[in-house]
């Protein structure tokens, strides 16, 4: 198929940037979106032009490195996929596809479609862990964990830190990301000990880093490639208030 791409090009952090239009023929529906971009880049290189910079690593939807804002949605039109898992069969001949980087104050653009997500690391640094030194762990079965809780913790723990939630949110809020970690650790007895301090510190870090506020639109849940539930945001809220009043 033939497609038209409108891609955000920006030389570096300080450059103003602009959209550049590319026509691309012979695109196969079997390609993934990133393979299509690889294909575009091979063409640009042959033509002596500068290839489009975008991040990707595992290309199987687990590392969270890739992530593009495609036609007004993070990771394009399909549900529950990362950008690297998006198949070109989601588009048809003659389509115009607008590709933008994640937009958020906390995710500055580095080049073209590459953004800086170290703010997520900083949120985790604030408290997204259980403070146990190597060697200090008790026998694994010493503390039973309710099966249901372990499963729910897993459902939150599968967050890949890609930033789709921030990208999708009309307020550029990181609540789904933060809540996934808060919720995972709050659901496990091992994590309960520091639950209060954790939720306070992580919310504070999130606020300081310039993310927006949650207004419960649910766009994050819809666009999360791992389909993490809004109920984790509710749990974060709950954890936060009990931490505040007790």
């Amino acid at each position: 198929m033939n497609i038209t791409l409108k891609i955000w090009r920006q030389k570096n952090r300080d450059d103003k940037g602009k959209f550049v239009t590319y026509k691309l023929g012979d695109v196969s529906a079997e390609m993934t979106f990133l393979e299509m971009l690889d294909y575009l880049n091979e063409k640009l290189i042959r033509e002596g032009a500068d290839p489009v910079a975008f991040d990707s690593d595992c290309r199987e939807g687990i590392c969270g490195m890739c992530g593009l804002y495609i036609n007004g949605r993070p990771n394009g039109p399909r549900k529950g996929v990362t950008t690297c898992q998006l198949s070109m069969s989601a588009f048809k001949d003659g389509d115009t596809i607008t590709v933008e980087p994640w937009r958020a104050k906390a995710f500055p653009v580095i080049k073209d479609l590459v953004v800086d997500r170290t703010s997520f690391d900083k949120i985790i640094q604030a408290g997204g862990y259980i403070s146990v030194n190597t060697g200090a762990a008790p026998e694994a079965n010493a503390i039973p964990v309710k099966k249901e809780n372990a499963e729910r913790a897993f459902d939150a723990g599968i967050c890949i830190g890609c930033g789709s939630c921030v990208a999708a949110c009309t307020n550029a809020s990181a609540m789904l990301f933060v809540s996934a970690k808060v919720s995972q650790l709050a659901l496990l007895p091992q994590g309960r000990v520091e639950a209060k301090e954790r939720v306070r510190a992580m919310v504070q870090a999130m606020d300081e880093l310039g993310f927006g506020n949650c207004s419960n639109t649910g766009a994050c849940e819809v666009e999360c490639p791992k389909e993490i539930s809004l109920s984790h945001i509710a749990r974060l809220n709950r954890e936060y208030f009990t931490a505040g009043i007790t």
Partner: protein
Amino acid sequence: MIKLDAKIPEGPLSEKWTKHQSSVKLVSPANKKKLDIIVVGGGAAGASAAASLAESGYNVKVYVFQDSSRRAHSIASQGGINATKNYKNDADSDYRLFYDMIKGGDFRSREANVYRIAEISNKIIDQFVAQGVPFAREYGGHLANRSFGGVQVSRTFYAQGQTGQQCTLAAYQALMRQVKAGKAKIFARRDMLDLVVIDGRARGIITRNLITGEIERHSAHAVVFATGGYGTIYYLSTLAINSNGSAAMAAFRKGALMANPSMAQIHPTCIPVLNEYQSKLTLMSESLRNDGRVWVPKQKGDKRPANEIKEEERDYYLERKYPAFGNLVPRDVASRAAKERCDEGYGVGETGLSVYLDFRDAIENQGKDAIKSKYGTLFDLCEKVTGINPYKEPMRIYPASHYTMGGLWVDYNLMTTIPGLYAIGEANFSDHGANRLGASSLMQCAGDGYFILPVTIGDYLADQIRIPKIPADTPEFDEAEKAVKDKLNKLMSIKGTQSPTSFHKRLGHILWTYSGMKRNEKGLKKALEEIKELQEEFWRDVRVAGELYELNHELEKANRIADFFELAQLIVLDALNRKESCGAHFREEYQTEEGEPKRDDKNYSYVAAWEYTGDILKSVLHKEELIFEYVTPVKRSYK
């Protein structure tokens, strides 16, 4: 002349590690504060090591090429992590895990190392659970287990099909905690381009800041490589597309030995190649073989849809050939068997290069819900990539490059032949011999990182406490920086016509054809010639777009591929040298009449460690003889 000394402690196998721990030199907490350690790589091994070292008091600097250490490819490990808890009461023990690994590795690994990892496997699970890994649980709240390829007990701990993700994130979080505490520092988006050796000791690294393109110097008292495997050398692999062998090659050029470089595992259960544009292959966890049955049609070239092929027309070839282990034979065996069937013309799918993995019977026996709870995420993944719904029709699988057992040679302390340079996790060669068993990679990464390195590194650093901060303005740093800059400038200046990726594809094709699942002398020699030619063409005609001092993925790729050419030649050299078939290394000249591998313990019971001499083809072979005191190498049979 390097003399290999594995420094294996004296004493009975099961007491070696305990004894060693009580005899290694120690560094006092006050002195640890004065010592800097560089860790390159932030995956399951790198992050766990960095966190543990920082917790104990060292100043740790971590370098990753991604934007965060959470992205490292350990995150993609799916099936699980082994431990000898024996929660299933199936008579498991450290010895059994040790034996399974030694045998699985086809008696080409070091007894003492393997026993140690089995011994500490339980502590790893304890640690992960305490760190909040949501492992699967039974209704009573206790940990659940499943079995895995190559073994007959259920000792694998898992978190659906995302065990690696959960464990890696736990280690990452532990590292983030140390970053907050100020004991560890992360240098993200940095490519390690060279190792700096001063007076024979590893003292620093040269990195390229991938955002600005600046070349930077970093110094420390010791350097740890947790840089993973180089399976991407085959171009298509289950690895992340940026995984590479450059760190290993940098160390190799500076005098570290590369051990068993040709031992590359081809994983049997991957989604087959679908088209020519494909940039990577997706792994389907080996755990699927617990309940899935592998088959091909009994009739050659049968193109009917799988569900229309009747039971009696199906050849469950693994169950037929290996009745004792059936679908749970180790990876090398399963991969070769699939290749054999496809080569004979029984393969399915459009290309004929795939076999079925069928869950029909499992769903019938256990119910859809039970299968869903075990493999739900994997089935979804399969449907996303291929459009095949494994609840309704069998998946199609084919082997793909996955893991490299080979790597930097290390002694019992995980130190390479360069004093002060350590290699942990997949980057070293130590625990998996000629073939790695499932669910043992995370185990080794975490074992090395959490429990082994933090102990053994003290043995070296205890002598370093009087050395003040290592300056980064020495001639050695100047020289290394210059070499890096020269190489990058050269790559930029060629301005040829072909992209780095196009060379990578061709290199991968050569290796896959001649040095993949089956090898022979003629092919390997041909491969050497072709690689050499391609390498020359690369240095003549590669086109690196963009500029040196900016974010430039093309330059990153070109630099990695330049190293792959050398590594590829080393792989082929090693494969040529090993005139036997063992584990993943199958030489067609050395097989039984039934097509099973023929190992040669008399002549090849050694670790092949290669030393760089300035010309890759003239690398010198050193042999570390493998002495088996506690097991007797037997013919590895899964029949």
